[in-house]
């Protein structure tokens, strides 16, 4: 890519001139690039420097992709453009990717795509040499195998010493173990290892949560070891759990599910490195759930193309896997409208659906839940939702907003159930769906 091509990506003149001002190596820290990506930190108006990364893989045939922790909604922002200009001018050093950039690239999951869903841009790999592709695949496989052997040894040590000892480890030690797995191209496992560290410090009841997570992590590894004996959809599931990306194009090539989809909940989590957004859609006629998962560097703004409380008709393509919640929205048919009614299930049915999902995949982290006709109940610090038959689901935190919306009358609540507690995300009351603060 040359300078003109980089500048041609700018959304307007202001971004173009701002980017030229930022394309000065001395303004950047920890900046570098390799064949596929460029990254760096640049000081902006915020307190912390913005972290920018660009996926160059589309070059030269297509457009690069980018992410930046600045709040600008311009695509690309001036920081990403500035970084591209530095690449174009050859002013960046070769270097090793920082872990978060590696993870972002892995999470983008469309790196092997030959075409993209949006605008169908061609990727450089379209006419890739099959032999080279096979070599890459084998290299990754070996890399992952090595990472998993290390992880098994690490797990054995942890269990031998006991959870009580493991709890006193520093935060950094969990992150280091995670970073090693990112290096081994197993970002899914990296996430689970980091989650162990969080579980160890999650307050009363932590040993139960940590042991359950250890068991599920072990189950991924057992699955990996016996991949040849598993049915195809579980093979895909295990590979996804390890962190093998599924090409976006492959997903979009699957047969779509056309339905009217209600956007019922969204949750953004930010661990200081990566920001993740989960958006839950619920199909009206098939009654199924679809999960839209986006990641970006910490602080980055997400697209506002799906708005909680609206409904639209669209083709949804499902990622392969045993439960098949993760999805992409393909073609849309017509505009989004406000949701005017939302019915939910009883508590017993919600738990049955969770068991059903677990039967398909024991790694389902959270089951989306839409419970209808429930009343919030407060017992000191313990909150729960109770349905008409007296069945209750505990909440993970006090939710005064749900209580305010209900006024003690039955309402419909959407949230995520992790097997222990329900995290409420939105509430349907007074004829509309209200997002509830996270």
């Amino acid at each position, binding site marked *: 890519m040359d300078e003109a091509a980089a500048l041609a990506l700018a959304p307007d003149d202001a971004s173009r001139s701002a980017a030229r001002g930022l394309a000065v190596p001395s303004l950047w820290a920890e900046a570098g690039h390799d064949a596929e990506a460029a990254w760096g930190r640049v000081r902006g108006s915020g307190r912390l420097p913005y972290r920018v990364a660009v996926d160059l893989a589309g070059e030269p045939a297509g457009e690069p992709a980018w992410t930046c922790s600045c709040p600008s909604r311009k695509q690309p922002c001036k920081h990403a453009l500035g970084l591209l200009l530095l690449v174009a001018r050859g002013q960046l050093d070769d270097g090793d990717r920082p872990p978060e950039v590696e993870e972002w690239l892995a999470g983008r999951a469309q790196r092997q795509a030959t075409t993209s869903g949006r605008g169908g841009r061609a990727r450089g790999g379209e006419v890739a040499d099959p032999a080279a592709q096979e070599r890459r695949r084998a290299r990754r496989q070996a890399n992952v195998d090595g990472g998993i052997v290390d992880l098994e040894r690490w*797990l*054995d040590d942890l*269990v*031998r*010493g*006991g*959870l*009580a*000892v493991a709890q006193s480890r520093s935060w950094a030690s969990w992150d280091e173990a995670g970073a090693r797995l990112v290096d081994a191209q197993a970002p899914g496992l990296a996430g689970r290892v980091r989650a162990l560290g969080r579980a160890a410090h999650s307050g009363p009841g932590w*040993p*139960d949560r940590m*042991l*359950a997570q*250890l*068991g*599920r992590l*072990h*189950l991924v590894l*057992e699955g990996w070891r016996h991949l040849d004996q598993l049915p195809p959809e579980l093979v895909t599931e295990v590979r996804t759990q390890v962190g093998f990306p599924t090409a976006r194009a492959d997903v979009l090539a699957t047969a779509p599910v056309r339905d009217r989809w209600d956007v019922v909940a969204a949750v953004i989590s930010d661990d200081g490195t990566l920001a993740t957004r989960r958006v839950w859609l619920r199909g009206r006629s098939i009654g199924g759930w679809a999960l839209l998962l986006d990641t970006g560097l910490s602080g980055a703004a997400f697209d506002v193309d799906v708005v909680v409380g609206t409904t639209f008709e669209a083709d949804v393509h499902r990622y392969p896997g045993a439960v098949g919640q993760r999805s992409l929205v393909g073609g849309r048919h017509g505009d989004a409208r406000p949701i005017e009614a939302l019915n939910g299930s009883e*508590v*017993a049915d919600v*738990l049955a659906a*969770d*068991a059903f999902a*677990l*039967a398909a995949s*024991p790694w389902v982290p959270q089951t989306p839940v839409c419970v209808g006709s429930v*009343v919030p*109940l*407060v*017992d000191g610090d313990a909150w*729960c939702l*109770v349905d008409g038959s*007296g*069945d*209750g*689901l*505990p909440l993970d935190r006090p939710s*005064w*907003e749900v*209580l*305010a*919306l209900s*006024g*003690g*009358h039955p309402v419909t609540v959407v949230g995520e159930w992790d*097997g*222990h507690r329900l995290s409420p995300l939105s*509430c349907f*009351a*007074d004829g509309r769906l*209200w997002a*509830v603060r996270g």
Partner: protein
Amino acid sequence: MTPGPWPALVKAALLGTERTGRLPPGEGPGAVGPLVHAVTADAARSPERVLLAAAAVLATARRAGRVPDRPAVEAPPPAPPVDGPEVEEDASHTLGALVAGTPPGAMARQLLPEWLEVCGATGRRVPSAQLPAVLDLASADRTLRPVVLGALGHRGRWLAAQRAEWRWAIGALAGEVPDDPAAAWAQGTSAERRALLAAVRAVDPAPGRSLVVSTWPTDKADDRAAFVDILATEVSMDDEPFLEERARLDRARDVRRAATAALAHLPGSRLAARMRERALAHVVAGPGGRLAVRLPAELPDDWAADGVERSTRRPGGERAWWLRQVVAAAPLDTWGPAPQAVAGAAGIDHGDALLPGWALAANRQRRADWAEALLAAPAVDDPSALLRVLDPPARAAWLTRALEAAPAPRPATLLPLCAEVPRPWPSALVQVAAGRAAALVLAQPVRAHLARPVLVLAAERADAAALPRFAADLAQAMRSDRRLDAELRRPLALAQLRQDLLAELTAPGLGHCTEPEGA
């Protein structure tokens, strides 16, 4: 939660296999049993892998086999049907921004009270989902409570009853006055007792006084003085005997001083009557109502006993200062009608003993006629204090007249008085205050700091009907003179935001609901 092998497994995991060794082959509940047995009895697995495999099976089984909770607590009675419509969606967004301090609310948090007031006054209510944030805010900031109460509706009051921190919203001051004030009074810290006394006095003055009397002989001097200060707000003749016969004769000087200050608010008090006699002995009316002042040579002992203090650093001399204190505590009716008395004191010797004394007395005795007469006098010390004695429409009217009549340099001293006029400012005041402020910016740029707050106040407080013209005038002024641009940008933005806010709030969406709120 579920009895069975899980707790034992957690215990083993906590200790580590190094200490516990290999798990014994085990069984699980129901259909999981054989699977648990298969993994625990598998000799090919290391002790660590046996534990991990058992955890995998049991954790999944526990989650899959989860049964609903059966909560034992009773739900509170549901809220009564909603009364009045919620505000429209745009208004709800604005409220969210004002509460969270995000744009455009970031620059205009001070508009929140008005939002709530208009919301309540037009029979609408805060959207249910925003009630917790609004109740939280008013729990921390008492000044918001009156306007919040009007905008809560049945739902808001129902919600407030569910949380101890929000109980202030149901039944005036419940939650602040404990069930047994006497016990709290006897046991509280100094700060707690002062807060308790203020809360009790606000509900009913007499029990508050009884609390003070109940422990008076044993309380520390600084507590006694603080209690008397609290009694002085909303003081009445019912308090006079205690203040006159006990607090005024206290052994501690601070307590005596607080008591005489409190008694000076009561023109019917015995102290005021004594002050009247003293004042009349030193101020006599001459021909044409002209007053003559004779200063005391020494501070008489009985004056000092009633709280008249010495001071060598007073302008006009210490002797005038003694008399001033006497005048400030004497009933204003001593002097006949205010305008004649003020006119009779103009330009006389030792007039500085009279005018400031009257000003303080007008404030203590809440006498608007005296405040107006004194504001008209040429040199008043503290016009803000006098203006506060007037009711808001009278303040606006006086300030409008004063600004209109003021020669060029005067607005600089009058403009700060704008802060004493609460919302809504009538159109005439908005026009003249903003006009004079803008003129001051142009004529004396060094004094622009005096004009700036007035322009912001005008934007915040202009009557809704006066806002469009105000905004148009500002825009016009900015176009006509670039020097005004920087000064007027913020008031203009604020005025526009307020116009939008009021339009959103009163938008005829669901129709006006003027139904009065029942209990």
